[in-house]
């Protein structure tokens, strides 16, 4: 353990979220379906249902729609002024070839832009967010787009199959003066903790079972949240909302309770029960759901977690501008309400678990 006093990760210039957008595919696989196939209904269900991408969806298409929604909420930002397009995911459609260039091309941000794909399990999106804050805050570019999205795969029958969902969120970072939410500061906490991984060329991830709990998720999430609040001099009571990475319902509820957050602070951003764990999209989608309802002046704490392991904690304060702009794109809840239930057979087909050749 490093006992050094936590110091904020924060640029000199004031930056903020100029636009945000969510995307969740329409298909839902009830956890009871996985339970029916693999445990004859005796295993129990960690969530109600998870979002499943259609045959024509992947991290590229999810990112594009989320990015378009983010741009719709940005006040007259010319896509050509976006100087970085970053997509964090563990399910990029290509092993080699960026997702971000396709997204940049689709939203018209090319060619005078930086583009990169980020990877750090479920916190690939929040680290892109954090880096975009630094990119804009340093004055390197006026706007940077950070996206977290995944179409997560769980090994058939594994605990993760119940929850491995699909979805993503996009954030356009820019000058604080145009922001819907001001970036107040962030803090990251990272160690080498192998709780979950996927080796090269493997289709499904592996995990450490109960080792994913205390030494991984809880330790990093708590340390990042506490570090941020200590450095900022805030307490849980200062936040109207708290959003944690949500691999299941139990973990985020438990860590929130331990840190002193109430159910009321967490419920608006807790989506895992309805859409599953969207990995790099998970905490970022929780944040879009919160922004959909937050009032000016309210503070939001975001704490991501990525296996391997680390957490990014970010503090935001909502501005007056949000009222006029949030209805310019579909709300996260609109996507969640748009649901089409499928059975395990259809799910197996949509997720290409059927061998065609």
């Amino acid at each position, binding site marked *: 353990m490093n006992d050094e006093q936590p110091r904020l990760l924060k640029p000199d210039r004031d930056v903020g979220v100029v636009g945000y957008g969510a995307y969740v595919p329409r298909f839902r696989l009830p956890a009871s379906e996985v339970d029916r196939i693999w445990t004859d209904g005796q295993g129990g269900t960690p969530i109600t249902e998870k979002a499943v991408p*259609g*045959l024509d969806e992947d991290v590229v*298409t999810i990112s594009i*729609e989320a990015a378009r929604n983010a741009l719709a909420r940005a006040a007259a930002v010319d896509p050509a002024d976006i100087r970085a397009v970053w997509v964090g995911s563990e399910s990029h459609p290509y092993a080699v070839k960026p997702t971000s260039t396709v997204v940049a091309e689709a939203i018209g941000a090319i060619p005078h832009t930086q583009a990169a794909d980020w990877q750090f399990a479920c916190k690939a999106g929040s680290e892109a967010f954090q880096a975009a804050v630094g990119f804009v805050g340093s004055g390197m570019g006026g706007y940077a787009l950070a996206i977290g999205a995944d179409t997560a795969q769980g090994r058939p029958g594994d605990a993760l199959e119940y929850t491995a969902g699909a979805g993503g969120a996009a954030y356009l970072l820019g000058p604080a003066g145009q922001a819907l939410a001001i970036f107040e500061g962030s803090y990251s906490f990272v160690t080498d903790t192998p709780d979950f991984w996927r080796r090269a060329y493997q289709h499904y991830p592996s995990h450490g079972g109960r080792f994913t709990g205390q030494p991984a998720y809880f330790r990093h999430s708590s340390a990042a949240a506490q570090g941020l609040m200590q450095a900022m001099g805030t307490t849980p009571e200062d936040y109207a909302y708290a959003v944690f990475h949500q691999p299941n319902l139990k973990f985020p509820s438990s860590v929130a309770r331990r840190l002193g957050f109430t159910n009321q602070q967490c419920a608006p951003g807790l989506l895992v029960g309805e859409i599953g764990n969207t990995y790099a999209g998970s905490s970022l989608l929780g944040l879009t759901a919160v922004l959909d309802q937050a009032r000016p002046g309210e503070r939001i704490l975001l704490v991501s977690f990525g296996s391997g392991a680390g957490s990014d904690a970010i503090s935001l304060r909502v501005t007056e501008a949000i009222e006029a702009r949030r209805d310019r794109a*579909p709300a996260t809840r609109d996507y969640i309400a748009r649901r089409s239930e499928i059975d395990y057979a259809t799910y197996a087909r949509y997720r290409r678990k059927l061998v065609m050749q």
Partner: protein
Amino acid sequence: MSVPNTWRLQQQRYRLMGEVCDRCKTKIFPPRDVCPECEAPAKTQFALSGRGEVYSYSTVYNAPAGFEDATPYTVALVRLEEGPLVTAQLTDVSAEEVEIGMPVEMVTRRLRADGAEGIISYGYKFRPVQFSPAI
């Protein structure tokens, strides 16, 4: 799938980049460089909004090679609000929900993948307008 050809078509496929006729202002999609209305050169780029309505539709049960793993899928002629008609798949909708005149919006989706090793082609599809953001 030809890689150069797929690359060449990205602008029109990803975001409906069409053209506008400099002389008669006709909006053109897919881009064709010569105005179909007045035969004047038309190379000025113009991005179509992606909003339109279903002109006609059908469902493919017997797919051509390259699309077999997607059947059944719905295809349509969509009349864009700027005028052009475009051929595309409908997505996020089941066939029985579709009708002529249904308002649709463009989304960018996977069109097809060239096997497990080749490139993935992305492009426009249309889906029913499902949310009404107050723009």
